[in-house]
């Protein structure tokens, strides 16, 4: 019992500590942060909102958040547009091939950005998308589509076939049954994919770092660690504020859907 709790407390403290540290740093005065004789765990001077003012008033932080949200929305749109029909086809129409094709698609999710970023950077500049968020909007679906197709495929399989059969007897075409019947009853599966694709966009780092250079067009995950540092000067207060404010909402939403993502990852190894 005691062992059980000490394991839980130890892991919670170590894993969550950086976020607690971001919180403390956000509200500390600069002079307090940079005095090595101060106890760093407490406020040695009055808490301050100065770092937040700097972050929101004098950096492009909100712009980066906006860029990321816009790119996220577009990627989600492209993902749904392509993954929904693909998943349905694999679940229902392709017979024995469905499962194998599904696994093949899933495996492409494992192809890492660090393998493709060099040729892709050339493709992006040939398309004239360099330094715009359109570069990531075009590239991110390459990893959101595979995983989303896989998740949706499992979801569609859990819908009884008889439902569509009945609708088709009533005069709907197969595609009509998919649009008018299957999609509306799959709202929770679709929502899972929306959240998954959107959070992946906020978390990605390597492609955004490779394709986008100007400060005004950054995604938040690259903008914060790159442009809140001037030369060798780290604006630790504002940096930590930005990390915390960006991370918490993403973490909260992701956590709600976590079990469903994990079900996708376990690839049938759990029954």
């Amino acid at each position, binding site marked *: 019992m005691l062992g059980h709790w000490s394991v839980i407390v130890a*892991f919670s403290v170590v894993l969550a500590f950086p*976020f607690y540290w971001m919180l403390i740093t956000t509200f500390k005065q600069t002079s307090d942060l940079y005095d090595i004789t101060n106890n760093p765990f407490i406020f040695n001077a009055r808490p301050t909102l100065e770092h937040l003012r700097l972050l929101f008033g004098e950096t492009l932080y909100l712009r980066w958040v906006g860029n990321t949200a816009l790119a996220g929305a577009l990627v989600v749109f492209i993902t749904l547009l392509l993954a929904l029909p693909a998943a349905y086809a694999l679940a229902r129409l392709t017979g024995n091939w469905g499962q194998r*094709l599904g696994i093949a698609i899933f495996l492409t999710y494992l192809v890492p950005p660090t393998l493709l970023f*060099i040729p892709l950077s050339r*493709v992006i500049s040939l398309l004239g998308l360099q330094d715009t968020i359109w570069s990531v909007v*075009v590239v991110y679906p390459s990893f959101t*589509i595979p995983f989303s197709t896989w998740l949706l495929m499992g979801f569609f399989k*859990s819908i009884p076939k008889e439902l569509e059969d009945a609708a088709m007897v009533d005069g709907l075409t197969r595609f009509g049954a998919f649009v008018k019947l299957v999609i509306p009853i799959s709202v929770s599966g679709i929502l899972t994919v929306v959240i998954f694709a959107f959070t992946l966009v906020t978390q990605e780092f390597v492609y955004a770092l490779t394709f986008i250079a100007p400060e005004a067009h950054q995604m938040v995950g690259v903008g914060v660690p790159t442009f809140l540092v001037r030369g060798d000067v780290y604006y630790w207060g504002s940096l930590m504020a930005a990390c915390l404010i960006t991370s918490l909402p993403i973490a*909260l939403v992701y956590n709600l859907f976590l079990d469903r993502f994990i079900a996708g990852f376990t690839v049938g190894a759990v029954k």
Partner: protein
Amino acid sequence: MKPAEHNVERCGGASATPPSPRERPRVARRPGGRWLGAAMFLPAILYVVAIIGVPFLMAFLYAVGDVRVGSVGYHFVGLENFRSVLHSPAFRRSLFNSVIFTVGSQVLVIVGAFTLALALRDKFRGRGVVRFLVMLPWVAPVSLGAIGWKWILDSLYSVINWLLVAMHLFRQFDAPQWLGEPKLAMMSVILVHTWHVLPFSTVILLAGLTAIPRDIPEAAAVDGAGFWRTLVHITIPMMRPILNVALLFGIIFTFTDMTVVYILTRGGPYDSTQVVPSLAFFTGILGGDLAEGAAISLFLVPILVIVAYLMLRVAHRAEVT
């Protein structure tokens, strides 16, 4: 339309369990179903092939050519780039570092994640809050989490060093330079990456643990097996497939990632934390030598192929048993 022969679907909700042979979808019963199927999944396939397949082929072309940023011509140079990469001390160093980085963090991740998953298996008050806290490193953007660590490991204002000094283990200006000394820097990037991946492996293992029927370990306990014996002889063997899954994903997420290294050390000091992906980035993207950069990234392929193969075996076994 005939009534379905088996209207009790063994469906596992959103969990993508492979169908058993008995419930294979009946192949397109109406004419045109096959064509509709193809028309519905082709757009997705074409998109993914265009964005993944084409650059993948280009990477091979680059690696056997002499392309640089700004150059116009292309000359085939055969395996020249691979030869020069293999002879470069920087590459050998980074390959060695990648192996240390991956093995080191995966050992820690699997041991840590298994321990944590065991602790989280049974319901207790506050489990939801604990789960949120321990999941943070995985669900928050990794570049931002890594910046948090950069501050915690700062050369001057590190809170860890403050504690070490306060406990009189080190003197003020003699405290460890976590990111400034080769061995410590390697240890730091391994630990920070472990911190990032551990929650992911924990939930995967947790999914496996909760799938073990409760009566099996209980029966072992009745027969007098203690915690450790149950663990070694029952729980771990039953967890084999899911441990494999967690490990395979962990290897991919570690061997091919450069975010933690890039944020914390930029590969330094003196290339002591340079890994294969970050070397490819510095060579191909920042250095503009596309050919050599592509050749370096292609060294990730064998690892990916092996992992994908093993993953398919795990999936296949789960399907036949």
